[in-house]
């Protein structure tokens, strides 16, 4: 089960999405490329600014940390060299958080994949070029040493270790945040499972739900979302073009009628 994504809820931002999964709802907006302050300007690439606003209150040190982590992760997959000396500003507001109280670090780690996915979808919505499709997922290791993908609130609260990772379509690891009491083998197991989950979310190109080893893969939610977005964009474009054409026809007919009455000023 992938998260619910609503496209373009903000009319004034260049791109925006509302992404909600069982734990969090995040509204993300991107503006860019826009003018950059002299101090932040980079001569050969676009500067990326990430702002994270908590569900209540103003951001503190924890939000600053998330911003720096997301900023460097996004920088590695965005084609920043295409917009030198500009700024790409991503702002994310958390609007829903888990109903039970989680320990600070669990709360933050659980939030990380949601923020990452929200950022990616809103960048796509804003038409900003990315080097690769990528997605993030969350997993925990429960006290009885089971790996749980997309855990529920209660499972997170009692977990032994928590893992947030992001992978690109070709399996490169973009982001890793693991915390808790873990050992080498368990970490490798979690990394493999998250990699599979992320790649499954991106989905194979031009194939239906793939079966591997007889296990049904989770639905490729990101692929579906992006396809839907592309379809609606094309539909919108067709509509705009159609409107444009009818306007052209109208204006040309108006011009024709003008022609009949008086000589065209242009000629």
């Amino acid at each position: 089960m992938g998260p619910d994504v609503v496209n373009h809820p903000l009319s004034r931002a260049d791109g925006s999405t509302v992404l909600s999964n069982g734990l969090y709802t995040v509204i993300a907006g991107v503006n860019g490329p826009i003018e950059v302050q002299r101090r932040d300007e980079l001569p050969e690439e676009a500067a990326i600014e990430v702002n994270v606003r908590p569900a209540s209150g103003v951001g503190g040190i924890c939000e600053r940390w998330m911003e720096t982590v997301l900023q460097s992760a996004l920088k590695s997959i965005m084609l920043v060299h295409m917009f030198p000396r500009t700024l790409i500003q991503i702002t994310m507001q958390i609007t829903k958080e888990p109903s039970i109280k989680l320990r600070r670090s669990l709360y933050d780690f659980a939030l990380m994949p949601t923020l990452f996915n929200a950022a990616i979808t809103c960048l796509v919505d804003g038409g900003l070029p990315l080097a690769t499709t990528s997605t993030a997922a969350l997993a925990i290791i429960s006290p009885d040493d089971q790996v749980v993908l997309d855990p529920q609130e209660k499972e997170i609260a009692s977990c032994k270790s928590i893992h947030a990772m992001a992978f690109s379509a070709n399996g490169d690891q973009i982001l890793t945040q693991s915390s808790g009491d873990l050992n080498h083998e368990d970490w490798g197991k979690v990394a493999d499972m998250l990699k599979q989950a992320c790649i499954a979310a991106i989905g194979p190109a031009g194939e239906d739900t793939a079966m591997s080893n007889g296990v049904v893969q989770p639905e490729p939610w990101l692929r579906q979302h992006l396809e839907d977005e592309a379809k609606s964009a094309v539909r919108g474009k067709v509509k705009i073009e159609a409107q444009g054409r009818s306007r052209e026809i109208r204006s040309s007919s108006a011009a024709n009628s003008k022609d009949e009455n008086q000589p065209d000023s242009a000629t």
Partner: protein
Amino acid sequence: MANDAETGPGLTFPQDTFAKLTPRPYLLAHLKHKTPVRPNGRQQNEFRQPTINTGSLTHSNGSAVVRVGDTAVVCGVRGEILLASDIPHPPSDDLEEQDLVEELGLVVPNLELSTGCSPAHIPGNPPTSLAQSLSYRISAVLHDSHCINPDDLRINYTEPKTEDDLPDEPPKEVTKAYWTLYIDILCLALDGNAFDAALLAVTAALRDTTLPKAWWDPDRESILCSPVVSDSRSLRLSTMPVASSFAVFSTASHLKKREEAQSWILADADGFEEELCDETLTVVLNSGPSTGSGTTSILKIEKTGGTYIGKDVTDLCVRQASKRTSDIKTALGNR
């Protein structure tokens, strides 16, 4: 000087000029050399050896000065008393004992970079996002490792028996106050890898911390502390978290093919290397306090930026980190 005019100005630069003009090719040339060695003379997987001094600050309960290469960090721990009656929302009974330190905020680390420690950090400026995220990461390590035993921070009082009590009931012990530890970390000089140095300074300072004997005085209804040094007791860290950071220098670019990219892992990057590396990995290992091998578990693996570090590279780094951790433990234990 006639000779100079004939040959023209030399087309060779001294090393420093090369490094300043084109830092990337300079580092690349070093790493591509037949016997690769980093510009700072270290091997790829070589960490800088820390120098640790403890107890330098007389007015704090515990302190440490750590120097790792040209990065110098001083850390002071100050204990203050938090009266239980001043806690607005007393912790619920179902709270796990080990989470008490975090719930009540009994450990408050703060890292200061605005000391003029490097040209990028101007003195007197508000904390940069780097300083804030370092503070956060240190507090997260302290809380997640549960290295501070909440019992060490309690100030208990055994209530005298009253007539209402049943005769064979044991005396009731109540926590009247807690010690709050303010951990102030000042970075005096920054030459890369602030996190490892800062965390090392914090652990060294906490190991050095002694808290005076404190008790509840029922007549005055306040906490009293003993001035006698021999009465004070030192904080016992139940585990010891040690961080090891790695940076990745890569020639990967979105303008090139993926296969053409070359990458190098640099352990404990200095300031010059850090500026050229986008990808970083920090491994925090948690181990028992003794110098012996003990059981070491992974507390944190944090990686961001870039795409080079996958599962295999992380495995390699974790192995290097465990070696590093035992080195650090020896350095701490030898004092």
